[in-house]
């Protein structure tokens, strides 16, 4: 019971972690939604492999502010993208990794399970055919 309460409390802290990186909120919930979607599209050029939504790096803070202000002043998503591409190049667009990469851990798990089962079977087969007693000497 107590453990459940602790876990529940920890879960309450999760949104705080999100807020710590990006505390700003737009007044209009629709604009806020567009903002959150957009910041996941742009690469943090100061970082490696992170979007500007994921990091407190100064570069990400600046670009997030830019995106927020452009949305507030009525720019479309396409205009925001074009604005940043004009200045930073295509590199600013974070393209998601190909989907099949996500399958690799699963494949590794299946492969590992297969090897484990094989080893277990071989052991059992060896034990089944083993006629020696526990006290016996090792065969020469």
């Amino acid at each position: 019971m107590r453990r459940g309460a602790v876990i529940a409390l920890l879960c309450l802290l999760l949104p705080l972690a999100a807020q710590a990186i990006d505390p700003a909120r737009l007044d209009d919930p629709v604009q806020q939604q567009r903002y959150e979607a957009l910041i996941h599209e742009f690469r943090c050029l100061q970082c490696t492999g992170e979007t500007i939504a994921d990091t407190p790096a100064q570069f990400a803070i600046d670009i997030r502010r830019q995106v927020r202000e452009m949305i507030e002043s009525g720019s479309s998503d396409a205009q925001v993208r074009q604005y940043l591409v004009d200045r930073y190049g295509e590199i600013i667009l974070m393209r998601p990794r190909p989907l099949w990469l996500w399958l690799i851990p699963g494949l590794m798990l299946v492969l590992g399970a297969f090897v484990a089962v094989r080893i277990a079977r071989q052991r059992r087969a060896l034990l089944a055919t083993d006629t020696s007693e526990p006290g016996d000497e090792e065969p020469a």
Partner: protein
Amino acid sequence: MKRLKFWIPLLGFLVLCVMFAVALFRAEENKIVKSALIGKPMPEFSLPDLLNSGQTLNSAMFKGKWLLVNVWGTWCIDCRMEHQMLLDIQKSGKVEIIGLNYQDDDDKARRWLKEMGNPYTAVGVDREGRTGIDFGVYGAPENFLVNPEGIIVHKLAYGITPKIWREEFLPFIDGSGA
């Protein structure tokens, strides 16, 4: 057969090493050295003048000369390392160096120039990094070489060394006969 099994983990490890190496060297982050702005006009700006309070610097003031736009801040360690080189470049008289004091504190920046010497013809204050975004800046130091027509011809996303100046910057300036 047993022998072969022994080598499998090592082989796997080597394969992984090769994969990681390829991925690292091909990382998209490595391609950002080239600026999207090369071949384009220098972005227009209008910024407070660090060294003459109350005055404004704007990009139009510097047309007709070779410019080195240097992004710097007192918080930036590489800028400190680069500073002597900037002083040497200024002495050579080949370019006017325009400073973009990036996300910094005015007093600290002025003290820095007083203590270490001032290589800049003028320094604009970009405390919030907005002009930096127009230049595609994502750190400091960054250097932009601008020709007399106001076109950005070269960009470096780190500090200038004597070798880089000689091999990457000077050929642009000397080649044009300017």
